[in-house]
């Protein structure tokens, strides 16, 4: 099968391994002269990313998310790892004042962000709202009870979690590693010669052709949240794909993209998402938090 043919290749003095997982291109950069070590670490990284994808993807039939979403209102006993993620999701819900909610995925049924001007029928959104809200679930470790008709989705956490987990595993063997799963990344340590990795931040409009920033990174997590090509445009109003689960409607005046540096990829990812959810207050929010960030301002009225 295709999956196993991937191996590391030598690119500009680094071993680079690539694969596709969690609907994103994934990349692991390993700075060691030893190909066997690089190959083994890369295999370990891919294995962990695929494990997390299998376990937490809502598109799979045989995993914990599927079981919870199809439990018909009955409690489901979850394993320790899932429990940790629920605790984390609960914390994010609290910290964002209810704006980050892993039960908000149902809104996808109403919203299609295809760059067109087709806005959903407000009534369709109204009928979805009663089935959305973390406050309606019952989470008593290890039992999780989801009211029938609701859905959970770890999409907003999964990639960042996979990056941090992979980093943790690889860090036991080598420090000179950079993990990048679909733009969410973590540097376990600097390059072998002690110099930082150079990270480019994509222009949200011209993907891969123009960089809006170049960030040197020795250690830590970096994540970007944005709406590149995922928006609706009607009557000169740009509807970002960042939805407020409390209203079912996009956050107004959200930045085009926010990149945050933090000590883990999960933190960076959540802070970037929270900033987007702050809409026009994103910059104020980020400045208040005091960690390094890069923001591409939105222009909602074109």
């Amino acid at each position, binding site marked *: 099968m295709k999956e196993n043919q991937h191996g590391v290749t030598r690119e500009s003095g680094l071993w680079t391994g690539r694969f596709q997982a969690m609907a994103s291109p994934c990349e692991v950069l390993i700075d060691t002269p030893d190909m066997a070590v690089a190959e083994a670490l890369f295999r370990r990284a891919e294995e962990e990313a*695929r494990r997390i994808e299998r376990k937490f993807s809502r598109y799979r039939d045989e995993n914990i998310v599927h079981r919870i979403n199809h439990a018909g209102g009955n409690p489901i006993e979850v394993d320790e790892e899932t429990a940790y993620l629920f605790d984390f999701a609960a914390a994010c819900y609290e*910290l964002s004042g209810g704006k980050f909610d892993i039960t908000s995925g149902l809104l996808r049924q109403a919203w299609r962000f295809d760059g067109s001007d087709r806005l959903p029928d407000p009534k369709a959104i109204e009928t979805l709202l009663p089935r959305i809200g973390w406050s309606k679930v019952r989470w008593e470790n290890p039992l999780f009870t989801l009211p029938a008709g609701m859905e959970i989705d770890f999409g907003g956490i999964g990639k960042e979690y996979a990056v941090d987990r992979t980093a943790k*595993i690889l860090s036991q063997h080598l420090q000179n590693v950079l993990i990048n799963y679909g733009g969410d990344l973590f540097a376990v340590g600097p390059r072998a010669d002690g110099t930082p990795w150079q990270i480019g931040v994509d222009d949200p409009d011209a993907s891969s052709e123009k960089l809006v920033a170049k960030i040197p990174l020795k250690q830590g997590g970096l994540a970007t949240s944005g709406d590149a090509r995922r928006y609706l445009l009607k009557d000169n109003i740009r509807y970002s794909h960042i939805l407020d689960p409390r209203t079912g409607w996009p956050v107004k005046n959200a930045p085009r993209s926010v990149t945050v540096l933090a000590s883990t990829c*999960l*933190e960076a990812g959540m802070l970037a998402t929270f900033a987007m959810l702050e809409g026009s207050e994103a910059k104020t929010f980020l400045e208040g938090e005091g960690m390094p960030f890069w923001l591409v301002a939105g222009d909602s009225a074109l």
Partner: protein
Amino acid sequence: MNGKKSIRNALAVAACTVLSQTPAPASADEFPWKADLSTLYYTEKDRVTVSESIASLRREIGSDEAFGLKVTFDTISGASANGAIFGANAGGVQTVTSPSGASRTINIGGSSRIDPLTEFTDTHIAAQFAFEKALWRTLTARAEGNLGFENDYDSYGAGGLLSGDLNHRLTTLTGGLSFNNDTVKPIGGTPVALNRVSDPTRLGLGEKRTIDLLFGVSQVISRTTITQVNVTHGMTDGYLTDPYKIISVVDTAGEPVDNLFESRPASRSRNTLFWRTAHHFTEDVIHFAYRYAWDDWGIRSHTADLRYRYELARGHYLQAHLRYYTQSASDIYRFSLAEGEPIPLFVSADYRLGNLITQTAGLKYGLPLGKKMEFSVRAEYLQQTDADDRFPKVDVLLVQATLSYSDLVDYALWSRPPP
């Protein structure tokens, strides 16, 4: 409302909690395997020949569980010294052969003599299994069991080990405890200690129980050097006598006049102190080990072991091995008893309890077969010498071929304690 600053800090705490878990198990199709198949041929010149097949398997279940299984099958045949003295006036007969089991008496020129070599054939099958689990990020438990069967010997055992990492995983402490229960069951029963060999009286089976305690410290000194110290204490009680061993009573001319079954104490405690260190050069690896062992039967032994692995091109390697073993005799060891002297309570003429020196030299050659397979062949020559020069030297040739398969990449300089 929380202040803005607290969101970042609270998030950091929450993320840290999520990531504090030990890595979760991988899915079934990605459990890595490690397997070895090996065949070994061991021959003592004019004595015992052993042919052994070993299959071992290890499977990791995610990164915090693993199980292992090892099955060994031996066929043993040949003759081993039983302790009897043949005497000089044996009419030129050096040895005789006899069917399996016990010593035999032969008549030479009107007097009866015991053949100093006991012929035997046996098959031995043994299985060992182990299960390892990470209990906590730095704490690993290992449970093991073993069983083994021969025609006249059964063995069952179980044990457990706990390892904890300290000091950023640079130091590992290991504590272990194991039990073994062995049954000695010669055909017809066990002889009565110190009875004449001609006496047909036999007792029931012999049973012995062993408890072993282990404590070890392993320390990573640098990225290329690791060292380890283990202390063990073992206590055995029960039937420790060898039912096939004999001691001769000799007259002043040194001719055997009588032969008695040997007799050993019903308990033994044994201690070892073991140290080893390994160093990685850019490619080659040197490995040195020393063991001091002492027991309450008066045996003291020293073992020095040196291995050097020399990397050739394309993953091929050569490994040289030198080993020196020296042992002082047990208090109960006597070559023979003098006619008329009072018979000691415990006495054995088993050369393995005497003053022994064993020297070993060997060479191993390994070559990769693809990415995950390796073939290696090892040849060793051992010479066992009786320091009192009363038994002939034993020359041993050992040849072993091994085919290994592994999905795992071993980052450690060594992954298992030595046998």
